[in-house]
């Protein structure tokens, strides 16, 4: 298991452990920097500023170790890919009754049209409404609407990711679910291009394709190929089947939801000895 599940999972995946969903954790020293920053006025200075200032400070992009440590210990904010069914379980486990849906900073501040893909959990709602009144387009939604939203994001082809508010001895509390793509999301890009693993850890699963079932499916025009944002999907025009490069797969499950047959399944990453430490 990834070390987070070993240390914070209590037998299951860390984000499925109810012990991590304690709102009082956000006031503890290992988490309050993240909570204050994400629910307050400093959010953009961190999110957009991190990308903007890194060019000048570290021109050779050789900042992998430092950036990973900064994400874990200083900004207290790390992300991991989850597939749709785990995203829905997280919505069910999440605190309180409310969620707040807000614009994605990465997309807005780099000129893309507004995408409301940032789903924050109940504990930040009151503070966000008080501290950032200019965000008039954010919406407080119910648990049922949040579930519908997750399914819509999956249909659209955006990667679900669960973010924590810091890792400390008292827990790893999830704070927000986001929906990312390499074309316009900064954490995805810094993971893909600069190997900053803490910005986007691989999910707990990898996709596996049953060759026989696949051969009865799309045949000439595989629909799963463009769904993979991580370049893990392969297609052989000779055999006319798709297959997964499991060392590149992040376990987002977007391929699986597009497949017209049941050829694609998500297997636990840890069932593959070579992937046990690949996050």
């Amino acid at each position, binding site marked *: 298991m990834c070390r987070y599940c070993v240390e914070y999972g209590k037998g299951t995946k860390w984000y499925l452990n109810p012990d991590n969903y304690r709102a009082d954790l956000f006031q503890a020293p290992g988490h309050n920097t993240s909570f204050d920053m994400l629910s*307050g*006025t*400093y959010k*953009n*200075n961190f999110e*957009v*500023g991190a*990308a*903007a200032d*890194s*060019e000048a400070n570290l*021109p*050779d*992009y*050789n900042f992998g170790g430092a950036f990973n440590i900064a994400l874990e210990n200083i900004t207290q904010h790390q992300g991991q890919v989850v597939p749709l069914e785990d995203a829905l379980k997280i919505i069910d486990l999440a605190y309180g009754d409310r969620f707040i849906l807000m614009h994605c900073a990465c997309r807005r*501040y*780099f*000129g*893309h049209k507004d995408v409301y893909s940032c789903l924050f959990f109940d504990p930040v709602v009151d503070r966000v409404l*008080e*501290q*950032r*009144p*200019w*965000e*008039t387009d954010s919406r407080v939604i119910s648990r049922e609407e949040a579930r519908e939203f997750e399914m819509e994001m999956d249909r659209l082809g955006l990667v679900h990711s669960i973010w924590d508010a810091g890792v400390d001895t008292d827990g790893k509390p999830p704070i927000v679910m986001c929906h990312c793509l390499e074309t*316009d999301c*900064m954490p995805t*890009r810094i993971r893909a*291009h600069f190997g900053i693993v803490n910005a986007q850890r691989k999910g707990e699963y990898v996709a596996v394709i049953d060759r026989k079932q696949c051969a009865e499916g799309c045949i000439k025009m595989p629909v799963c190929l463009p769904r993979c944002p991580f370049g893990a999907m392969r297609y052989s025009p000779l055999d006319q089947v798709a297959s997964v490069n499991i060392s590149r797969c992040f376990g987002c499950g977007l391929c699986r939801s597009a497949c017209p047959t049941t050829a694609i399944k998500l297997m636990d990453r840890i069932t593959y000895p070579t992937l046990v430490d690949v996050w």
Partner: protein
Amino acid sequence: MSESEYITPRYQISVDEEACGNAIDCLKCVKICLDHGPNVLGYMNKEAPEAPYPEKLEEIDHKIISAFMINCDGCKKCIESCPHQALSLIVPEPQKPRALIPQDASVVLCGKLADGTEVLQL
């Protein structure tokens, strides 16, 4: 990467914040860079707002920022699009090699000289 001081030469975009004003009022450079492809220009609030918190996004002062400049191709469309001539492109000097090491294209390992002397014990 190794400990060398080599820095990948990249374009830099310098923004005159005074000439630009509040970036959110315009954003022409951001849009044109997105349309052209590289999408290296963005904008963000200059400072974290303090109480009393503004009621409108436009009331917050924004600046133009650049990121992931490795994607910039130096097209200068952003420079040309700015109505206040606030942007300028800093073109990097191509790096020269740090040292020239003459090296034979191939090395021939010979064990015996022309006069029959054995020079290598293989």
